[in-house]
């Protein structure tokens, strides 16, 4: 064990536990770079060593590239795994490590830059022949019918100089467009001092579907199916599943082929996710962005296909074979992940922190818990509210929903408010059970429930 390569884990919470487990699986020695608040955490105890990199607030520790790099040097790290969030998509840490000859568990810095910005990511997608959202600037607000037809309905008229949702109008047909475009231009002049307008296709009932890719860095890709992450509240994912339910073979192939093309164009290295908007009212599929890191919801893919993506990341970073199989587009299982957050779903999802006084997890086949929390753990106020991920696998989606329902019922977390009641509600809802709900589904449904209770 003395010459086991050291993996510096530059993150906390459940993903730190996950990376430590993967390091152990490949025979490496995990060292945790921790803030003061986390220096005695379960992840710290699970690691071979802990290096305290800074004070508790993330912007004084986990978000400081030079502190993490210093810890990597001190640890004698062969590679640094940044997890998700924090510095995971920042070229800064990646480049500091390159200078020290320490491997970065993630794509090259130029890839991070290329996909880190909406505009450049869109251009990469276009170069790769991946469908992007239609949009066009209006030259003359009185000649708009052709432009509207080009984009399709419904569409949004946006004031280019507007912002924060102001100056946006929804248009459902050419007549409305002809009527509203000049009005919008006039109002934009009045409101923003500039009448320039932009037309953009509007998808009010689209799903969030993403594809798990793994690139060898030379342009070759493994594609590990797709995930549906449409149960969202204010763009925060609550529940994810693999595979995405009810996708036609054609759509699935378009998603997978597009993702493969992006990996090739980017010569993408390691694990990544290509996010798409999949419309439920048209056949449209639109590229959203590339997430150049492992994602919170990676376990649904791992369980569905029987792979270890984090171990594969580490192996690739260490210059070894990532030991991944070639798989078909649809996995032989259905998997659902529920994010258990320290938030009160009955009080506008307000986060809370404090001591976990009692903790019981369900057991049995197909149940996986990714977490750092344990009985007696003091959930800290400094970081995000994700406490645990409850992942349930079954032979098909109906069975997975049933298993997830039972699993949620059999979790006990005392001491904090959690999102468990929300999960119980969603899993029992006929729309969710049917599958394929859009991202706009959760908000009003949860509000309606609240009102029905009062």
């Amino acid at each position, binding site marked *: 064990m003395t010459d086991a390569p050291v993996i510096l884990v530059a993150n906390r919470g459940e993903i730190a536990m996950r990376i430590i487990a993967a390091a152990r699986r490949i025979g490496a020695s995990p060292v945790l770079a921790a803030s003061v608040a986390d220096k*005695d955490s379960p992840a710290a105890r699970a690691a071979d060593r802990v290096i305290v990199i800074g*004070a508790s607030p993330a912007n004084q520790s986990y978000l400081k590239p*030079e*502190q993490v790099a210093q810890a990597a040097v*001190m640890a004698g790290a062969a590679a640094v795994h940044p997890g998700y969030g924090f510095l995971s998509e920042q070229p800064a840490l990646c480049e500091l490590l390159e200078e020290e000859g320490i491997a970065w568990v993630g794509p090259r810095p130029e890839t991070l830059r290329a996909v880190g910005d909406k505009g450049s990511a869109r251009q990469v997608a276009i170069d790769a022949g991946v469908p992007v959202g239609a949009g066009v600037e209006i030259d003359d607000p009185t000649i708009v019918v052709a432009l509207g037809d080009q984009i399709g309905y419904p569409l949004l008229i946006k004031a280019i100089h507007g912002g924060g949702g102001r100056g946006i109008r929804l248009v459902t047909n050419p007549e409305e467009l002809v009527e509203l475009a000049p009005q919008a231009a006039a109002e934009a002049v009045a409101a923003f001092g500039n009448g320039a307008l932009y037309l953009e296709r509007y998808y009010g009932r689209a799903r969030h579907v993403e594809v798990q890719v793994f690139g060898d860095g030379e342009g070759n890709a493994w594609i590990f199916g797709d995930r549906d992450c449409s149960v969202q509240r204010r763009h925060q994912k609550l529940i994810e599943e693999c595979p995405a339910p009810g996708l036609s073979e054609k759509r699935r192939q378009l998603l997978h082929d597009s993702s493969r093309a992006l990996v090739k164009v980017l010569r993408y290295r390691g694990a990544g996710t290509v996010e798409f908007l999949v419309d439920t009212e048209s056949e449209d599929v639109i590229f959203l962005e590339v997430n150049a890191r492992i994602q919170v919801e990676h376990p649904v893919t791992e369980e569905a296909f029987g792979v270890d993506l984090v171990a594969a990341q580490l192996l690739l970073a260490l210059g070894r074979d990532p030991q991944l199989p070639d798989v078909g587009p649809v996995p032989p299982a259905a998997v659902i992940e529920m994010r258990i957050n320290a938030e009160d779903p009955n009080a506008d999802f307000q986060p809370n922190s404090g001591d976990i006084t009692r903790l019981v997890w369900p057991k049995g086949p197909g149940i996986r818990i990714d977490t750092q929390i344990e009985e007696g753990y003091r959930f800290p106020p400094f970081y995000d509210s994700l406490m645990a991920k409850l992942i349930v696998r079954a032979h098909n989606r109906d069975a997975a929903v049933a298993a997830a329902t039972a699993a949620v019922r059999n979790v006990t977390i005392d001491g904090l408010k959690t999102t468990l009641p929300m999960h119980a509600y969603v899993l029992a809802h006929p729309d969710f059970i049917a599958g394929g709900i859009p991202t706009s589904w959760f908000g009003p449904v949860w509000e309606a429930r609240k009102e029905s209770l009062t």
Partner: protein
Amino acid sequence: MAEQPSWQDVLDLIAQLNESDYESASVQVGDVSIRLSKSDAGFDMPEAAGRVGAQPRIETGFDTPMASATQPTTGAAAAAPAAALGDTIDAPMIGVFYRRPSPGAAPFVEPGQRVEADTTIGIIEIMKLMNPIVAGKAGVITDFLVTDADPVEFGQPLATINTSA
């Protein structure tokens, strides 16, 4: 490991703790462990056990890290705990600690020397960036706890300082 307390010691300690204001107390010396609680909240946490194990000495647990609460517990009389052991100057950042402005130069300060809050006592280098480290409090440096050019973590004690001297 400290010498085992006698049974009388245990009784004395309990009597002493009973007169104190502590809501709850937990004392462990070797095989001997005592936990007392005046409220139901008592001893919730496996954590507490963990900590006691990790920190070799005696610890009377009040639910959270308690640092200074520790000392006088066992003792009978025992005076002025924290200051007696000496305050420390802790690393404000992770990096490599240097006691000298450059190799071969004289140290910024030596043990025994008096410093003010703004006296530079060393440098921490982090990824080639040099950061002067000041004492942060006035007093006499009693000892350096880190060797020149050693890596230090955030919060690691660099030196002890007698602030009452």
